[in-house]
């Protein structure tokens, strides 16, 4: 099982209080994780990536294993620790000052 953590607003939308666990088929990629997430929680469609182009929203970031994976190709394999469920795939709302 893959673990995914969500920012507060998306946890509220999805009506979850902590990390979500997803069954993701191999190879585990960002696209496969997001497809599984949106299938399990359809209310999140369009909030992480554009519903038509599937482009990551500008102020969303993907972190895992201490690295920023936001600019990795969506079909690249995620780190093995994420694919095996040892580390979470973290979906982050980018910082905004003010």
């Amino acid at each position: 099982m893959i673990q995914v953590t969500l920012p507060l607003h998306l946890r509220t939308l999805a009506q979850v209080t902590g990390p979500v666990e997803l069954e993701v088929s191999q190879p585990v990629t960002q696209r496969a994780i997001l497809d599984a997430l949106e299938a399990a929680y359809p209310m999140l469609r369009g909030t992480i990536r554009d519903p038509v182009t599937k482009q990551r929203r500008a102020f969303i970031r993907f972190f895992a294993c201490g690295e920023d994976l936001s600019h990795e190709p969506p079909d690249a394999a995620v780190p093995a620790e994420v694919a095996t469920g040892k580390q979470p795939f973290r979906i982050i709302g980018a910082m905004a000052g003010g």
Partner: protein
Amino acid sequence: MSEVRVLVGTRKGAFLLRSDERRQDWTVEGPHFPGWEVFHITGTPADPNRLYASQSGGWFGQVMQRSDDGGKTWETIGNEFVYEGVPGTHQWYDGSQHPWEFKRVWHLEPSPDDADSVYAGVEDAALFHSSDGGKTWRELPGLREVKGHLWQPGAGGMCLHTIIISPDNPNRIFVAISAAGAFRTDDGGVTWRPINEGLKSEYELPDATAEVGHCVHSIAMHPSRPDTLFMQKHWDVMRSDNAGELWYEVSGNLPSDFGFPIAVHAHEPETIYVVPIASDSHHFPPDGKLRVYRSRSGGNEWEALTNGLPQSHCYVNVLRNAFAVDTLESCGLYLGTTGGQVYVSADSGDHWMPVVRDLPPVLSVEVQVLP
């Protein structure tokens, strides 16, 4: 005794204000969708407990919400607003052509007789319709064929913010778009035409009487007179008596004819309201006094309504969707400010009182009278 429910959309969530028909004592409920911009929250005439809300934010885009129990619980509905066909381009700030890109829903207008039928006005300007309670949305692309390539976003964005379904003919719909103008369909949204003749925008447009490009801020109609429209333009308060075929100015003795909302009294079709703002450079009321102006003659002759509204050091704005009128016998008025106040008048504007003072900036106000 009737219940009055005021639906308030703000920069940081939605609030529901409830009172009885005396409209003196209020409860405040919220925030719903805390932290999100709620550009519009509205009820459906056919089923007052069916509410629709547009929830959006810079991080997570557009979310649409529906309640079937008067706002106690909410469920997400469809949020895919896809322009029909090849989206095409509109004019950009530098004069180049720019692709149409969906940004957010500004206004929701439910059908008067079918709670599952609702229109959505969006930025970049277009009109969408849902016939399944908001699960799916379909664009009415004929609107953007009306010289859409010449439309250009103003500072507030290229938004479709006003939708009026004619009460005597559901195939006739009026819409207004910031920095594009007013438009009308007579065939249920298949074909459209601009209805901007008589508008003059000498400070905003190189051609002051251009067919499109006028910055219409809002339009209002009394249901008993579907051919009479009142418009608050960027500058100028305007009136049409022939469904927008020709407009003429009724600004009269207003201290400023710049403003955002315009509204019509529920029972007096010639009584209208505006909230003058000093100028497009200032975006606050003249002289630091928040004054609603009322005309009982359909324009030109205006009186200031000040009782209960701040008359010194007031520098808030009242946005285009933030003024509402109820249908009780003693007509109630409601306005929300960018300072987070919501004011109510239970006597057609003669006296006002604040319901709340410290909400986030108010984006929209709607009111329902419940049996």
